[in-house]
């Protein structure tokens, strides 16, 4: 007879019951409900000393996320990669000239099993390229010959499957560059088409190899000589040119982690570390334009998105065009493995903190949220 009470979840009965018990008056004083709690303004002066009032609007010192955040800090040193540094880290390989005069660009990538801290205190048994998740952001120039020396030091067969144009023999699927632990394979192809691409392991089961961390950005800059009608635009995209140096380029790989292996993600992020950029905002100089190479490597969820606060941007889907495929938007969607380039600036904005996040609220609240710290410069 007693346990029946536990099973009762009907709120109509609940309200009646509380009235019968005569405790309504007592409970009402502490019931927060949907109404705002009146709070003592004096307490605002010393917020650190007092326990947080969950019903009070967070102050500016709480960094835009308020109480909605992971707790603690990640040991980036131990991980061997830092999400802030990762934003601007490009692996350009080593360059040589072939007999026919073309440029040969060689990358070296190793598959390594590695435990990484994806959120404060949460260790994930990752499969990595070069010990980091996402793997190195490879960058080349349109038309170059690319050679990627891939060695598998992991515990499972792996491959590098590039989204690009190449022979079937270089595709990184079973039978063409999917190698066993201890083996080596050299992928070789021309860098085309220009754009914002990705590579990932194509071993099966695919979902597992993906969400364990085997993916990375693969950017091919346009060759201005091949696009005379938009040579200026192409030059601004080509790493190493003065035109490109003006831009503040960031590479962001949207990813997520299923830490309990139930095919649903527990943590969402850009560049692996949940809440990394909300706890340490990305410094942006307002006088210089911003270009984001955005890649969606999220597993399990079909779609991820990018929403920019208080600003709009131009979008180049897959980055394979020199004119925007979408103009003046503040939100884009990407399905799994979709990617593109975002261009915007804060030239006319007031300096301060500007938020960006995936606009699936669930992803936002599970770590995929960050801040741009716009500074006068």
């Amino acid at each position, binding site marked *: *007879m*007693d*346990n*029946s*009470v*536990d*099973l*009762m*979840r*009907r*709120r109509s*009965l*609940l309200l*009646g*019951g*509380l009235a*019968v*018990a*005569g*405790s309504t*008056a*007592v*409970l009402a004083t*502490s*019931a*927060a*409900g*949907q109404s705002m*709690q009146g709070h003592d303004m004096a307490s605002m002066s010393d917020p650190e000393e007092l*326990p*947080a*009032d*969950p*019903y009070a609007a967070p102050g500016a010192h709480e960094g835009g996320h308020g*109480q*909605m*955040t*992971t*707790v*603690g800090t990640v040991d980036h040193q131990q991980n061997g990669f830092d999400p802030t540094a990762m934003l601007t880290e490009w692996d350009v390989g080593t360059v040589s000239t072939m007999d026919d005069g073309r440029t040969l660009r060689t990358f070296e990538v190793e598959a390594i099993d590695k435990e990484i801290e994806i*959120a*404060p*205190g*949460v*260790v*994930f048994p990752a499969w990595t390229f070069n010990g980091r998740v996402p793997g190195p952001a490879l960058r080349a120039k349109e038309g170059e010959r690319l050679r990627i020396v891939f060695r598998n030091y992991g515990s499972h067969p792996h491959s590098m499957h590039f989204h690009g144009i190449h022979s079937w023999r270089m595709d990184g699927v079973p039978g063409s560059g999917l190698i066993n632990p201890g083996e080596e394979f050299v992928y070789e192809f021309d860098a085309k088409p220009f754009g914002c691409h990705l590579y990932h392991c194509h071993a099966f089961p695919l979902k597992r190899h993906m969400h364990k961390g085997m993916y990375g950005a693969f950017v091919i800059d346009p060759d201005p000589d091949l696009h005379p009608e938009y040579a200026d635009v192409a030059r601004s995209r080509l790493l190493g040119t003065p035109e490109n140096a003006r831009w503040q380029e960031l590479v962001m790989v949207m990813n997520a*982690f299923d*830490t*309990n292996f139930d095919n649903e993600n*527990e943590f969402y992020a850009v560049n692996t570390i*949940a*809440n990394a950029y909300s706890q340490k905002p990305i410094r942006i100089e307002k006088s210089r334009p911003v270009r984001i190479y955005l890649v969606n490597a999220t597993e399990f969820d079909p779609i991820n998105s990018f929403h920019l606060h208080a600003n709009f941007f131009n979008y180049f889907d897959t980055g394979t065009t020199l004119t925007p495929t979408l103009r003046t938007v503040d939100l884009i969607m990407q399905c799994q493995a979709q990617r593109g380039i975002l261009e915007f600036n804060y030239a006319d904005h007031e300096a301060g903190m500007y938020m960006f996040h995936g606009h699936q609220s*669930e992803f936002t*609240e*599970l*770590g995929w949220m960050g801040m741009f710290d716009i500074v006068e410069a």
Partner: protein
Amino acid sequence: MTELAPSSNASSGLRRFLWLLAPLLVLAIAIAWIAAADPLRSFNNGAPPVETITFERTVLNDGGIRVQIRAGGSEDMTVAQVQVDDAYWNFSMAPAGPLARGSTAWIDIPYPWVLGEAHRVKLVTNTGTTFEHEIAVAVPTPVATQGQLVQQAIVGAIVGILPVAIGLMFYPAMRNVGTSGMGFVLALTVGLLAFLLVDMTFEALELAAESAPLFQGPAMVILAALATFLILMGISRRGGRPEGLALAFYIAFGIGLHNFGEGLAIGAAFATGSAGLGTFLVLGFAIHNVTEGIGIAAPIVRQKPHLWAFVALTLVAGAPAVLGMWIGSLAYGTQWSALALGVGAGAILQVMVEVTAFFLRGSGRQRQSWLSPPVLSGFLTGVAFMYVTAAVIKV
């Protein structure tokens, strides 16, 4: 066999010894089974380390959500992050740091929960394992203010003391019943006790299933019941077989433990907000429990106890409901409720045995069969009445 015959002292002693040996043997087997079986249920995937977290208490107040957890890992466990409703939330933990197997900690989450709505708390450990706790209906957890305690005592009195008192008021009417009527009333008592035994046992096992695995809930309940049964049998048989007022007090004690469990459940329902404690429900409890008073009165219909005895019987049987309300509303771990109910089940079993023995001794003198129509109908009426009135309070 006559209890007082000196010639049968030796055989009687042997019989008593055997009486005690049989349940002890069962107890030993149960203990061996516990030792052999893995008490950690979650040990089913071979992935080291095994981690278990049980949510024992949930407190909702102005400061947000507080949960008390108990770790049951094969190694020390660390809570790394806390989600509420699929959002990572700021939290603090006391004591901070890794949790040893069996230890508890409070987690404070300044989360703006919404009155009357559901919330889910999910803990992520350092290995990425998650543990979820549902708050089915969020209401402020009662605090032990004087006013609150008084109001809970009133509800406790309505479901505990009042019905027992009403049941005892049948006493004058019961005094005039004949042999058949007496058989009916005693059988009715055994019937209602049988219902309480079954009901309490299942409820205890249900609560045990919710408690931390290291308590080995089901075994704890069964062993607690067996131990209580043995202890009470041992005590009650020291001065001969209990009859009359003594038996009435044993019944009152057993029913008191049952009402304590009932109070715990109602109080816990208050605390968790899952209480659908409508007027009809409280009345249902009251009607349901009236039979308890009749049962207590049954052994004393041939006696003339003082009025104080009736008061004492009422309080022994009914007052624990008030105590249960108070303790239950403070949202203690379910294992304690399961243990209390297990003890209660043992006590009920003991009075079932004693009332049956009392009846058989009486019927021996009066040639009334256990299967005679008045007795059988009494037993079935007791069970049926409890079953039907219980339907009102089951939702």
